[in-house]
């Protein structure tokens, strides 16, 4: 199993969710985060004073999928979360040791 973690632009979340659902992904966990990459934040102006805003709001989500699906899932996320502008985000893949469904006790691929 692979845990695929992606940091994307908040407004792209719905598109990504739809794409992954079509692929057969059954669940995901979403959190609101902030961060910066090479983009390094920006300045905002309030009442004429410039404020340096280092962190940009992003959405981080995680899905766990069977190893065979991982590549397709990564490709799907890359397509649906893409806008072409700075700040599109990143996708990380981690090897997952174990998964358990709490309600039934099923493990690994049965738990997904």
């Amino acid at each position, binding site marked *: 199993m692979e845990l695929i973690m992606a940091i994307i632009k908040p407004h792209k979340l719905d598109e990504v969710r739809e794409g992954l659902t079509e692929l057969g992904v059954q669940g995901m966990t979403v959190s609101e985060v902030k961060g910066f990459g090479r983009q390094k934040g920006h300045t905002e102006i*309030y*009442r*004429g004073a410039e404020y340096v805003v280092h962190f940009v709001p992003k959405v981080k989500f995680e899905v766990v999928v069977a190893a065979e699906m991982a590549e397709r899932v990564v490709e799907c996320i890359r397509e649906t979360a893409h806008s072409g502008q700075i700040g599109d985000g990143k996708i990380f893949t981690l090897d997952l040791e174990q998964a358990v469904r709490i309600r039934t006790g099923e493990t690994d691929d049965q738990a997904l």
Partner: protein
Amino acid sequence: MQQLLTKCRRAGFWVAAILVLLPNQALAASAIDSGDTAWLITATALVLFMTLPGLALFYGGLVRTQNVLSVLMHCYVIACLASVLWYAGVYSLAFSDGGSANAWIGGLGKAFLAGVGSDAASGSIPESVFFMFQMTFAIITPALIVGAYVERIKFGAVMLFSALWLIVVYAPVTHWVWGGGWLAEMGVMDFAGGIVVHTTAGVSALVVAMALGGRVGFPGEVKPPHNPGMTMIGAAMLWVGWFGFNAGSALAADQSAGMAMLVTHISAATASLVWMVMEWVRFGKPSLIGTVTGTIAGLATITPASGFVGPFGALVIGVAAGLLCFAAVQAVKQKFEIDDSLDVFAVHGIGGMTGTMLTAILVLPVLGGMGLAEGMTVGQALGVQLLGIAATVVWAGAASWVLVKICTALVGLRVEREDEIEGLDITSHGERGYEI
């Protein structure tokens, strides 16, 4: 049964007749006008509403999340403190007869409202109502200064400074302008507080900000307002409440009050649009915070003029407020690098002074105004207005500087750096504004 009912009806008739006659007798004797009184009671509520929660929310939205409660606390506690001090003696110092010193200050004859019973009158309204109405001004003025020292002031210093400031700055200046003091004798025109409220608060704020030093990270690394929506809500409450502030200062429910409300509104709306357009032109985007700041600038600037100018004058004042206060915000923060954090001097100080000066010109009937006092020329009027401003700037500035020194010595002025970074809400008040 029939006879009993008839007797009751007859008795009722006489009771009604007596009731109808008596109040008129009482009214004629003390000259209390119920219309004036009703309006002033309402205006009092409106002006208190300006502080609680208007100003509190306006300022609250402009600070970081970890300081929002501290700002609400400052406004709330100052309201309570000023109320008690007003009763204890500040009202007396401002508005009672000071005998030989009456040009400069009142006496303590009305401390704890001695001799002021429920029948006491102040013109056509009960003195209790006049006391309350003026009290709401004494509340909001020190609360305005909060904007200069947010996010780094010690709470004890807030209390001590505000208390002393009311006695040493607010009471005398009020007495000079409204309490029969020397400026009143000279015919200064300050309808609702361009000098008494906005100039005193603005100048004192600047002095405190300079003495305190800037926030950690000022000027380049300061955090933006955490809740512009909260600020807009506060600004809206201030706008509505300001009808009580300016129209109530007519101390009557009459045409003066009506026109004061009208010009107040025109100035607020105009200044908002001017500020909005200036941001649009200069920064590319018109912001909510900028627009509502323009509103407050317009309201502050019309305040001294509200009983003296007409609608055209209000338009002029609105434009002037938008332009000058906008420029002043940049100048204080960027050119002079003074961390008057919430721009009290730029908006209230500059606004109040501008409006006070413009009153001398816009009062002229040819410009729609109410006309100068008998025997006064424009030149003289300008001179008196300027003198009033200058004297107030000097007194408020010098006194505030001394009070800062006293507070620093007695309680300390500024919190520790780590506390400032972590936030005053949790470090000074043990509370969090938001549970995440």
